[in-house]
């Protein structure tokens, strides 16, 4: 069984981001970048399936500028076998990303495609679902458990009312939620070994996909600042404030 994992390089999730004063975007120059946390869960899930004898080959693909090679190397160090960088300096929309990935899926023909459920930069949560539609495969998003059962997957999904379990025939697309697993930190020998694993670099243009954006981003602005609060000295004072709030709500 072959598993393809799509991963994204984003501003490290521990970095407090800064919106550029001219509204053109979020400052990424000189900012620490790393693999999107949800993508790490996807890579870990693929490597675990492979280690359990349920995946022969784990291929990782990332779409982005040259430095995205770093996150592919991270995934290779975690245990993936081979990497593909679809290189572009353009900021692509999720639909264009999904179309490029659909081309990669057509070439690689994986049984399972794993992705993170969302990237923590644009927070879109689109690509897995779009890719599933474009490749005409069933989807199971927000996965917290993945089990291989014959020629199908049983996936437990985290949803607003609790969880649900779906059975999806292979080939299929699954997106990872945070409780799926605990991603490993690759040991140094694995990091060294990752550099010798195959990594193909392909230009995004060679896939023949229309990458032009559909939407116009007018501006990026910081959220409204909250006014400074006060500290109260006792539960009794706080209870008075809460009681006043509650009676105000009831009055409305």
């Amino acid at each position: 069984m072959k598993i393809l994992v799509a991963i994204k390089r984003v501003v490290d999730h521990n970095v407090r981001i800064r919106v550029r004063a001219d509204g053109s975007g979020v400052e990424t120059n000189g900012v620490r970048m790393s693999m999107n946390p949800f993508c790490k869960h996807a890579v870990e899930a693929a490597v675990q399936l492979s280690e359990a004898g349920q995946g022969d080959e784990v291929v990782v693909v990332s779409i982005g500028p040259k430095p995205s090679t770093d996150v592919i190397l991270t995934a290779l160090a975690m245990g993936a076998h081979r990497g593909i960088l679809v290189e572009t300096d353009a900021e692509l929309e999720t639909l264009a990303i999904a179309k490029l990935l659909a081309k990669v899926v057509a070439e690689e023909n994986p049984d399972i495609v794993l992705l993170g459920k969302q990237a923590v930069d644009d927070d879109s949560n689109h690509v897995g679902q779009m890719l599933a539609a474009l490749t005409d495969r069933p989807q199971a998003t927000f996965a917290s458990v993945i089990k291989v059962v014959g020629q199908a997957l049983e996936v437990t999904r985290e949803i607003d009312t609790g969880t649900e379990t779906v059975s999806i025939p292979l080939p299929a697309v699954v997106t990872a939620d945070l409780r799926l697993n605990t991603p490993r930190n690759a040991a140094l020998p694995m990091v060294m070994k990752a550099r010798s694993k195959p990594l193909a670099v392909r230009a995004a243009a060679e896939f023949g996909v229309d990458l032009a954006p559909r939407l116009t981003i007018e501006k990026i602005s910081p959220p409204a600042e909250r006014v400074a609060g006060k500290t109260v000295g006792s539960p009794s004072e706080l209870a008075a404030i809460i009681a006043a709030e509650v009676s105000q709500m009831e009055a409305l």
Partner: protein
Amino acid sequence: MSVLVVADHDLGQLSPATARVVHAVSQLGTVDVLVLGHDTTGVAEKASKLAGVQKVLCAQSLGTAEADVSVVEALAKGYHIVAQSANSCGKDRLPRLAARLDIMPVTDIVEILGSNRFVRPIYAGNALQTVTDPQPRHLLTIRASAFPPAANGNAAPVETIDVPVVSAAQLIATHRTESDTPDLAAAQIVVGGGVALGSAENFQLIARLAKKLGAAIGATRAAVDAGYAPNDWQVGQTGKIIAPDLYIAIGISGALQHLAGIQGAKKIIAINNDPEAPLVKLADVALIGDLFELVPQLIAELDQKLP
């Protein structure tokens, strides 16, 4: 313009989120509501009462993304806009529909500036993106908590339609969290607990205060990961986004990803032993000290003030 809103419902009840989505998009055009599923008569009737609704459509579906999207896709051609709330169902279905229709969606909308101009948060709400969508048709998900609900009092007609449903995926089980507290995403008051509670038993303290106030219960990712609270209570970038009138955060330091979920709260109260905690700094009112002493005292005080 014509708008199709896909309704949310659970256990035979229309979700309060749908009234908010209907209100948000009714400024864009005439609204039809689509109710998917089985035995949805009660849900359709509730939806037909919402102001701004022209017609309610009921169609059978199978509760999977493929099934729902196959029905919506068949209907979408008749509308300029398809909208759904940005909850776990809308997030799952709408991008799949978008790729089927080759339309780039605009999701998690918190403000509608015009017929095709929207504001959506990025970077866990630490930045806001203003987007123009020049496509002839639009696919939107709406953060229900950012909009007021539509009024009741309408009596729109309800039609049952027959659309073929396709799904290779099968729903085989659902596991829900038993709780009699209000829906987090629509609650006026939310009481949230963090990992400082220390155990699932201690988390009952949060439940007691919530019950006293008729509030929904929220939890941080760390508290959920530690098993103190179920996953559907998680508030934050990866959990639920809340916008209550009052949020009471207990033993929550305020990780970035949690703050992302509470930025819409009108008033924030924090109880924490660390005066330097990010959430304490952000709060409108803070009470500093040991939550295990302060919260029982607070509940006793509220028993007197709000009998």
